[in-house]
């Protein structure tokens, strides 16, 4: 690991001042991803600004939603009574990610900023446009079992690895950030970027901007929501595919639906095409199949990950059926 300086910020203002003082400085959360990447020399900051001691908590917003400080640990968010009762998919998504130890360390802000687990991104000997722009992509013709089927480009087919973010995408969260020019908010679904020709650009977060909180709007029907994750072993593995979903059914018709996919795209993938089919449609297997087909019409496999297209189709249908049945048999 390359040497660097370490400083601990007491306030977000101090963190912004410290990060601006060095050309190549980074904020440090729980370190579960950044420290690992630094040990592999993929990340080489000159300075780390530790933001984990900034005041941060979970509170109910005046509108009935909740506000989650960026330094809240993943396990604390998953265990919060308001999250467990109002947004069970978010609690579940976090609990399906990583291990108990890592969930105790990882912060909410850090989880959002984590980088892909593509093997070629981690391997300094491999070509990777994300790590070394213009060098090529060894994943496209390589062993790409874990890679993207939606939203990828000829430059990069890496996936976003977070579970928590899939639920935040489904819930239409808002990211609050603070920067040299003050505060601003970014819709969660506009926060991460698709690779296009610049796979090294992963978020719209500006240089020296700090995530300070995540805001969740009230969403009463999210009480009936769930997260399902498919992986190569039963626990402690990244998703081959995951789904966060919520459904509201009234008089046999779908009144509200939220659907997001993980493990299949370069960003947490909100399934807007599927939601369009679901909204107002009659609840039932035909509708669920049409929704899955609509979302996956542009899906593309890269050989080893071809199986993900059919897996996604079946799992979308299965999850929607489970949610519909939780209100009685179909």
């Amino acid at each position, binding site marked *: *690991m*390359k*040497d*660097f*300086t*370490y400083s*601990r910020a007491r306030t977000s203002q101090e963190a912004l001042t410290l990060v601006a003082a060095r050309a190549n400085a980074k904020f*440090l959360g*729980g*370190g*579960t991803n950044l*420290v*690992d990447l*630094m*040990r592999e020399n993929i990340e080489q900051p000159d300075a*780390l600004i*530790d933001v*984990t001691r900034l005041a941060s908590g979970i509170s109910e917003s005046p509108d009935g939603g909740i506000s989650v400080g960026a330094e809240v640990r993943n*396990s604390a968010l*998953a*265990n919060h009574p308001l999250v*467990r*009762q109002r947004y*069970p998919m978010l*609690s*579940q998504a976090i*609990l*399906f990610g*990583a*291990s*108990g*130890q*890592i969930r*105790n*360390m990882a912060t909410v802000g850090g989880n959002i900023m984590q980088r892909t687990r593509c093997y070629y991104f981690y391997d300094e000997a491999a070509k990777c446009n994300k790590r070394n722009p213009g060098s090529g992509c060894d994943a496209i013709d390589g062993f790409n079992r874990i890679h993207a089927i939606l939203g990828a480009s000829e430059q990069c087919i890496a996936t976003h690895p977070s579970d928590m973010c899939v639920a935040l995408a489904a819930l239409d969260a808002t990211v609050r950030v603070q920067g040299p020019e003050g505060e601003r908010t970014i819709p969660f679904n506009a926060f991460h970027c698709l690779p296009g020709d610049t796979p090294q650009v992963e978020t719209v977060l500006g240089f020296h901007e700090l995530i300070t909180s995540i805001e969740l709007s009230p969403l009463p029907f999210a*009480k009936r929501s769930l997260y399902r*994750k498919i992986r190569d072993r*039963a*626990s*402690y593995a990244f998703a081959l595919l995951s789904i966060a979903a919520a459904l509201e059914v009234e008089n046999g018709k779908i009144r509200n639906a939220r659907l997001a996919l993980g493990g299949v795209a370069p960003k947490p993938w909100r399934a807007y095409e599927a939601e369009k089919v679901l909204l107002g449609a009659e609840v039932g297997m035909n509708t669920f199949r049409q929704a899955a087909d609509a979302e996956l019409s542009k899906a593309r496999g890269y050989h080893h990950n071809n199986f993900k297209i059919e897996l996604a189709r079946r799992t979308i249908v299965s999850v929607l059926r489970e949610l519909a049945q939780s209100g009685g048999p179909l």
Partner: protein
Amino acid sequence: MTHQPRSVADQAERSASTIQITLEINGVTRTLDIEPRVSLLDALREHLYLTGTKKGCNQGACGACTVLCNGERILSCLALAAQYEGLEITTIEGLSTTGELHPLQAEFMEQDGLQCGYCTPGQICSAISMVREFRNGLPSAVTRDVSEAAIEFSEEEIRERMSGNLCRCGAYVGIRAAILRTFQSEVMP
């Protein structure tokens, strides 16, 4: 093995980046002069000679380096020592202050919860914090309904909650039995 002497310039650069930190390890305050890049794991093993905590993968995949921070389990290999100033760190050496084994350590021996023993300190620290999480009502990925307060302390729950600790000898059956026997009456009276 030959020792490569460092150049004077290299040494100057290194010492320039050394910082002094104070850690609370097993109830004792320890002051260290280290580089910011030293992990909590290396600080424990290489600087404080507390070698009970083990280095397995050094990349957050195996759990052998698990220690407690304010009673919560963390991976010391992914932790920079400098980040943990002022927080209470407990290692396998600090689980018992009486000279007797911690009840879970004794039960690991009774239930054959180990073969080579390399993952054991991490398993034991992890399990102690896992039970605390359980008492605090934290659900897991196998909890049927996360909105419900009561969760049954079952083998299935233990299996899921301990998945961050690998055992290459495959002593999982004994590890689960030791955890269940030690904590069942305490967690589910």
